[in-house]
């Protein structure tokens, strides 16, 4: 059996999986920043109860396998709170995002703490409020310090996104399995999918590293971490 023509026939369908895989990753990354950054600020500057809640959140979402989290939210929590009508894609993206927030909050926390305490004192003594100091002095530096670590979240979320196959999200791995079932060609199709994942993985990382260079402030080492 000649594999190559069949592979080429199915390639457009396989490539269509990239859209929803990247969609999952982008939503998850965005949600991770949106939730992770306030959580990090809460953990550094917040009152004791806030620090405790964030700590428990991080412990929970980092301690559970992504498969169990997906099952828990898809079959359990979302239907129980009346969100059972959400599509698998939305649930997958949200769960990846909630989990990403737990990991990302710790990257942001490390970065915020690495900005010297003197800076906050100096900003306050210049008459800035705590919030202004965080926004205009601490965060612009902390975000740049966090970027290398944050970039490494991208490949993690990308490879985790494949687990969304388990709840029926039609992403790259699901499409791959469908093609395998249809054509009964296994290894070449799987390897093609692996190739796509590898290109997405390292291509995305390269973009992010480019971004790091772009926003670097001369003389302010972001590689210091």
């Amino acid at each position, binding site marked *: 059996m000649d594999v190559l023509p069949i592979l080429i026939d199915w390639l457009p369908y396989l490539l269509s999986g990239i859209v929803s895989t990247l969609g999952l990753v982008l939503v998850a990354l965005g949600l991770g920043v949106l939730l992770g950054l306030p959580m990090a600020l809460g953990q550094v500057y917040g009152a004791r109860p806030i620090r405790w809640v964030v700590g428990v959140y991080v*412990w*929970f979402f980092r*301690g*559970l*396998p*992504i*498969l*169990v*989290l997906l*099952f*828990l939210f898809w*079959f*359990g*929590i979302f*239907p*129980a709170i009346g969100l059972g009508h959400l599509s698998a894609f939305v649930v997958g993206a949200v769960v990846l995002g909630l989990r990403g927030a737990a990991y990302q909050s*710790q*990257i942001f926390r*490390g970065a915020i703490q690495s900005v010297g305490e003197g800076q906050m004192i100096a900003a306050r003594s210049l008459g800035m409020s705590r919030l202004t100091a965080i926004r205009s002095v601490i965060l612009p530096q902390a975000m740049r310090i966090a970027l290398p*670590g944050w970039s490494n979240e991208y*490949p993690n979320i*990308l*490879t*985790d*996104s*494949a*687990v969304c*196959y*388990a709840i029926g999200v039609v992403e790259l*791995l699901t499409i*791959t*399995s469908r093609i*395998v079932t249809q054509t009964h*060609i*296994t*290894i070449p199709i*799987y*390897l093609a*999918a*692996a190739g796509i*994942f*590898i290109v997405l*993985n*390292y291509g995305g990382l390269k973009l992010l590293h480019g971004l790091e260079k772009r926003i670097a402030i001369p003389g302010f080492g972001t590689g210091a*971490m």
Partner: protein
Amino acid sequence: MDQAVFLFEILLPALMQGLVVTLQLIACSAPFGLAFGIAVAVGRQYGHPVISWLCKTFVFLIKGTPLLLLLFILYFGLPSIGITLTAFAASVLGFILCNSAYNAEYIRGALISIKDGQMVAARSLGMTRWQAIKSVILPQALRRAIPGLSNEFIYLIKYSSLAYMLTVIELAGAGKQVATKYFLYTESFAAVGVVYLVLVSITTVAVSILEKRVAVPGTVRATPSAQL
């Protein structure tokens, strides 16, 4: 049905059976993942350029591919070229490959952190390159790699759940079966989650004890930032 009856007579016994399989998966994967990881790291750092390139490519490919896809290749793909593995064996093989690639990165980082002078000194004392790596470099490097390796071990505990996708009824799979049978999804998966949290928490404590036990007095301990 009574909540307590469900929890203690149906859910927990099923989860304990699943836990045994999860522990078997981990016990079969972790030692080989560590040994293979050391070999790949040493091969990449000190090996012949061809071996070094092979080790680098191995890590590159494994880190770029989702583990679930790797498991599918091993379980559904390999039979087409005449290698049929049981679901358990395919899972363990996948976990070893994945675990060793990530371990190799941590160990390589630790190898690089050992100063060149140590190798020069060991050679000048008449040791061969291999003896120097084995007796001087690795004992220090592995201690420094403990935080990274323990993180990877925790990842292994968690991604062992992916074996369920190859029909191995481990912890997550046992929970899924009970959940589907009794339509009690939140309760079942929450219980599964608690067991994983216990496993992960025990590991965290055990690692910090191990790290203190094997520490050589006076040597620098790995910084906490290495755990990210």
